[in-house]
């Protein structure tokens, strides 16, 4: 039933369509829309589904390399890892739902990214996450952190995929808009990747998995709008997760994929049946006819609009070879999941949706899929407050500064969080969270292992988005390198404020510029990703947060190194130290200032230093390795000492730098290595023209600073491990 012009205009606005977009939809249809048609346009043209503000910038990112099997555009990216296998991976945000309902928001974020991976034929082997929360002083933050951590664990632990890594930062800019970015990696035979483009007119369109209910209707539209003060009233748009059903869906889909029954497959994520049907038929250049009376429903009396826009979880859409339909049905019945033929592919180029015999939507696919593309106005982001290092006249002593820094929310131990995530499931976890710069997961039955990390330093991005974008990629690449892995490719999750704010778009464009340069310099292409805009509440945007999920490979898992020192190892610093304090955590925590430009990123130095470090690790010269990032050199050394439960005696630093700048500056492209033979390593570095500096030696039970002041490991550990349990238990 078509709706009247006046009503439909009001509804269009309510659904998030601009007047121009609404006019365009009308022109495509040639008549007033039905409410279902309007809902389909609104969902497909939402920022979340269409990338209408970000697409023109995303084109600038390098996406190719000889090892890339599938770049952006499918459910996930795919890279060849050797032995005839491929790694399938992607990261996706679930920011808005996690603010409204932290447990379910985070849980369904994990479930959604898992489906993107096994949709492509890969068995998920590891999950990671990147979390950003508001000021810990805000009581709401405590509730959100607790709910998000429980949600990630509750879903991941039950579904049977280990959660092996992640990162957490706090900043008041995330008050009211936390970020929950979830990443999953799977393994598939390289020659057997499943894709979403439908083929074969007349072939059955099959719905499998959980039943459809009224949860999450119009979630994609919610995710494409900024929050007002009434955000809590949006609770009904949050989906509810069922990890048990997801586990069954994984096993049933992978079992069916062993046969040749599947022609195309797509999970039902944002915008549910609408986006999966439109994308599958659209990519295949066909049409699709759906009879919604055949959709398995959880509730009675659901309308076409509700069924098409529901974001009920744990559902997939497939096109099957009609000759194999019964094979599929038998497998799904064995796993006690619904299996229903709900339509056919057609040659009409249109999506036609029927409910109780009536056509509720009939839209040509090509113009529907060609969502609006916006070149939003840009404005230069404001420069950070200036910072003159010479203005620091009374730096606190090193020992109290270190104890404060290792205990602050951004640097303290995350053990309380990791201890709630099953990280050993699968029996392949070579390096668990907190024991190395990247998680190291062996591929079952193989010598090779994947290295995985998530990284971003939002305060750098806020101060200088281009440098921050490059730094996020450089740090991910460094973390993979620090375990001995060869970085292969990355997935990204670009979390920003409203694209309608020119300053936000200016940050977005600059971050992409920095990222693109880093990808090129490091041979580290983007193979999948997600953009999350409108991350703001009451007009205040989050810090620009382009999170990078990096994937690397170790041909032999035995070559992986962690960050734990052992007695007798000598510490050597690779890279140059200029004592850069702008945007450092030392400046923020000890002086209360978020000021100055972030440390410059020298991509050539990153590449040279990283390649040298990796060569030395693979050559067997390195027993422990840690990149130097947040908190600087002394924090990195303290973390290595704590991981190995062994003290360190530090040498005198170079005389030309103030001690606080040398030990807490955040210069990039640096690593601390623990080696048995420092002379040999220094000689190798010198031969390769890589800057290297002897820092000290591991042993005893104290971290002894130059000048002889000793901090016991017990005191260091107490400071490091206090925050989370004291705050949340």
């Amino acid at each position, binding site marked *: 039933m078509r709706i009247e012009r006046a009503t439909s205009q009001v509804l269009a606005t309510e659904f998030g369509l601009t007047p121009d977009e609404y006019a365009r939809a009308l022109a495509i249809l040639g008549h007033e829309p039905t409410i279902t048609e309007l809902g389909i346009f609104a969902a497909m043209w939402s920022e979340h589904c269409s990338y209408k503000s970000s697409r023109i910038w995303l084109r600038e990112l390098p996406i190719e390399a000889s090892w890339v099997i599938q770049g952006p555009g499918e459910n996930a990216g795919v890279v060849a890892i050797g032995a005839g296998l491929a790694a399938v991976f992607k990261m996706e945000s679930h920011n808005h739902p996690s603010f409204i309902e932290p447990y379910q928001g985070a849980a369904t974020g994990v479930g959604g990214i898992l489906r993107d991976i096994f949709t492509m034929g890969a068995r998920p082997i590891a999950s990671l996450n990147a979390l950003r929360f508001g000021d810990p002083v805000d009581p709401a933050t405590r509730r959100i952190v607790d709910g998000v951590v429980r949600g990630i664990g509750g879903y991941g632990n*039950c579904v049977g995929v280990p959660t092996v890594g992640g990162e957490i930062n706090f900043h008041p800019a995330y008050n009211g808009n936390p970020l929950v970015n979830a990443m999953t990696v799977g393994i598939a035979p390289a020659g057997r990747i499943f894709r979403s483009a439908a083929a074969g007119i007349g072939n059955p369109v099959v719905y499998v998995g959980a039943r459809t209910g009224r949860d999450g209707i119009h979630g994609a539209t919610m995710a494409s709008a900024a929050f007002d003060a009434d955000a809590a009233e949006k609770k009904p748009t949050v989906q509810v997760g069922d990890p*048990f059903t997801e586990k069954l869906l994984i096993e049933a889909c992978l079992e069916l994929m062993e046969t040749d029954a599947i022609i195309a497959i797509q999970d039902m994520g944002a915008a549910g049946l609408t986006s999966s049907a439109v994308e599958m038929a659209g990519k295949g250049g066909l049409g699709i006819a759906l009879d919604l009376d055949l959709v398995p429903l959880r509730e009675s009396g659901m309308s076409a609009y509700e069924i098409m826009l529901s974001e009920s979880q744990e559902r997939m859409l497939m096109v099957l070879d009609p000759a194999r339909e019964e094979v599929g049905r038998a497998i799904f019945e064995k796993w006690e999941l619904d299996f229903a033929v709900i339509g056919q592919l057609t040659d009409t180029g249109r999506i036609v949706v029927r409910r109780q015999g009536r056509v509720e939507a009939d839209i040509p696919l090509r113009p529907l899929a060609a969502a609006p593309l916006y070149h939003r106005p840009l404005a230069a982001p404001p420069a950070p407050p200036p910072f003159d290092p010479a203005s620091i006249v009374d730096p606190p002593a090193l020992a109290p500064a270190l104890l404060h820094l290792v205990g602050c929310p951004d640097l303290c131990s995350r053990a309380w969080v990791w*201890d709630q995530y099953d990280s*050993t499931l699968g029996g392949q976890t070579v390096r668990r969270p907190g024991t190395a710069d990247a998680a190291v997961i062996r591929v*079952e039955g193989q010598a090779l292992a994947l290295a995985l990390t998530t990284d971003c330093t939002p305060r750098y991005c806020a101060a200088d988005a281009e440098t921050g974008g490059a730094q996020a990629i450089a740090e991910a690449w460094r973390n993979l390198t620090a375990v001995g892995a060869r970085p292969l490719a990355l997935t990204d999750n670009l979390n920003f404020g409203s694209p309608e704010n020119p300053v936000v778009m200016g940050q977005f464009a600059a971050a992409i510029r920095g990222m693109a340069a880093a990808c090129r310099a490091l041979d580290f292409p983007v193979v999948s990703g997600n953009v999350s805009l409108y991350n703001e509440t009451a007009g205040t945007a989050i810090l620009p947060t382009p999170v990078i999920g990096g994937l690397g490979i170790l041909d032999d898992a035995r070559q992986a190194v962690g960050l734990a020192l052992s007695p007798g190892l000598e510490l050597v610093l690779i890279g140059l130290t200029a004592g850069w304090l702008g945007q450092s955590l030392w400046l923020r925590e000890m002086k209360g200032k978020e000021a100055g430009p972030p440390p410059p990123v020298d991509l050539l130095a990153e590449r040279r230093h990283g390649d040298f470090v990796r060569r030395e690790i693979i050559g067997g010269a390195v027993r422990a390795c840690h990149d130097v990032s947040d908190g600087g050199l002394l924090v990195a050394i303290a973390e290595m000492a704590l991981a190995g439960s062994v003290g360190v005696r530090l040498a005198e630093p170079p005389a030309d730098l103030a001690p606080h700048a040398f030990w807490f500056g955040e210069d990039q492209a640096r690593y601390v290595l623990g080696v048995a033979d420092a002379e040999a390593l220094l000689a190798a570095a010198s031969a390769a023209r890589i800057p290297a500096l002897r820092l000290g030696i591991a042993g005893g039970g104290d971290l002894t600073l130059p000048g002889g002041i000793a901090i016991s490991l017990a005191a260091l550990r107490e400071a490091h491990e206090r925050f989370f349990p004291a705050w949340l238990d």
Partner: protein
Amino acid sequence: MRAGITIFPGINRERDMAIAFRKVTGKPPRMLWHQETDLSGLDLIVIPGGFSFGDYLRAGAMAAHSPIMGAIRRHAERGGYVLGACNGFQILTEAGLLPGALLRNASLRFLSMDCHLRVERTDTVFTGHYQRGQVFRAPLAHGDGNYSADEATLDRLEGEGLVAFRYATEDGHLAPEGNLNGSARAIAGIFSGNLRILGLMPHAEDRVDPLVGGTDGLPLFEGLAAALAA
């Protein structure tokens, strides 16, 4: 040894178990769907970890009523061997094949970390390759591992020597800091009266490879393979 691994919907550590058994026997164990009832030819039935049927009722409660559980009960009555780890332990208590219950962890949070297990008895097919009093590390990963039973049952388990493993400190002492989930009398694993059924919460199967956390769990599987060699 002919081992079979039971698959309930929602079980998720069956691959880990299969790897451990393949490591000590050189052959893949048989995988048993929860609706199978013919266990003939099998010496050992293994119920691995996971979330059977989502554990949406009580952990293990639904699985305890699956068709295969009747067959496992008959297998046990014939003197067959059964190993239940984590969810498997919970299922065995729900099915009444082992006494007691696994309650929510005392912290009310899911715990995933290494624990230290003290071996309490070594004259069994499960523990014969450990030393009495030996302490080994294994990961635990559960939300409901807090072993509980009435005092009489706990006294009987201890009196009859049916406690297999206890949570301990690294040097083998019983102390609250070693008993991570708050289990009664620090019990991490128990035997049936005939010593042929073992239920334990931690995952020895995830400690059979020097590269993946070490081989502390390997003696359990090597002991089984040696004792049940046929």
